[in-house]
């Protein structure tokens, strides 16, 4: 059944490796850090300023999961909601490199690093996206790679580079 929600969005064939998507800045307030930590990550260094000072993070810092969540929210707004997304498959090489501290402003880029057809789902492709999230000083705070399913517009079409080239008869071509 055609999907009227995503019919006019970009499909697998419309993407290219190397495309860079900007992720808009977000300032992470103390209240945001507390609200997120209470729900998903209530460790002392995300909830208690005194305890945070003596922790490995040396001060109140957001949960790495919050950095990840805010990044995916930006990616949805600027990319995933403009393609025929069929859901996320997962993340690899997730690195929380530096903590996000109170009132840090995080932004970043998402770069399409690979595109391939799914082996198990003939009508789908997999877009691989490298995420690089930085703070206001330009320091990298989180990197990871996201794999996301995307609908193929014409699953039955054979890509040009997979069509064998048959030389016209009598033509010897270049000797190699």
């Amino acid at each position: 059944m055609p999907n009227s929600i995503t019919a006019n969005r970009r499909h697998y064939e419309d993407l290219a490796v190397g495309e860079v998507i900007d992720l808009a800045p977000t300032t992470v307030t103390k209240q945001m850090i507390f609200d997120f930590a209470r729900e998903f990550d209530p460790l002392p260094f995300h909830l208690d300023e005194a305890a945070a000072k003596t922790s490995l993070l040396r001060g109140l810092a957001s949960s790495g999961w919050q950095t990840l969540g805010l990044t995916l929210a930006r990616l949805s707004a600027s990319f995933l909601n403009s393609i025929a997304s069929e859901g996320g498959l997962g993340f690899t090489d997730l690195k929380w490199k530096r903590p996000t501290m109170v009132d840090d402003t995080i932004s970043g880029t998402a770069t399409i690093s690979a595109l391939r057809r799914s082996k198990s789902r003939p009508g789908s492709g997999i877009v691989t996206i490298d995420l690089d999230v930085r703070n206001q000083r330009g320091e990298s705070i989180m990197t990871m790679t996201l794999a996301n399913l995307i609908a193929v517009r014409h699953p039955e079409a054979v890509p040009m580079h997979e069509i064998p080239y048959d030389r016209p008869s009598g033509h010897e071509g270049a000797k190699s």
Partner: protein
Amino acid sequence: MTRWFEDINEGEVFPLGDHTFTRDAIIAYAKIYDPQYLHIDPEAAKLGPFGGLVASGAQTAMVGQRLMVDALFAEADRLRAAGQEPGVGGPSPGGEKIEFKAPVRPGDTLTYSLTTLGKRVSNSIPGWGVLSNEITAINQQGELVYRAVFASFLKLRGA
């Protein structure tokens, strides 16, 4: 878990408990962190690849984090009740593989568990060790829906 690094046994499995994903919680999470129609619009999601609303994969992971933190506190309480001093944990430097293997739908109940795959003394931070922990979640049909491997810091005793 909140023990000292020396007291962690490789291969030990820690049950983290269950969590039921309600339709309202799936939508509330995704409106903030993953506002795609698959996760926020039950009607539109019927036209999508899963034939209905599914949870954001990241929500599945974050619920696992919350259950793990609750289990850390419970373990610390257990040790204190036994007259022992709990260990000190630190933040996670990341994860190598986080896989969403099957959709999580409204009403699904996931059972999470943590297995310590390995441990080593940190090269970069003196006095600390690094654990490699696998977290899995299976649904009420016994299907594996989530699997991830994370690193986390844990203090050495007396360091």
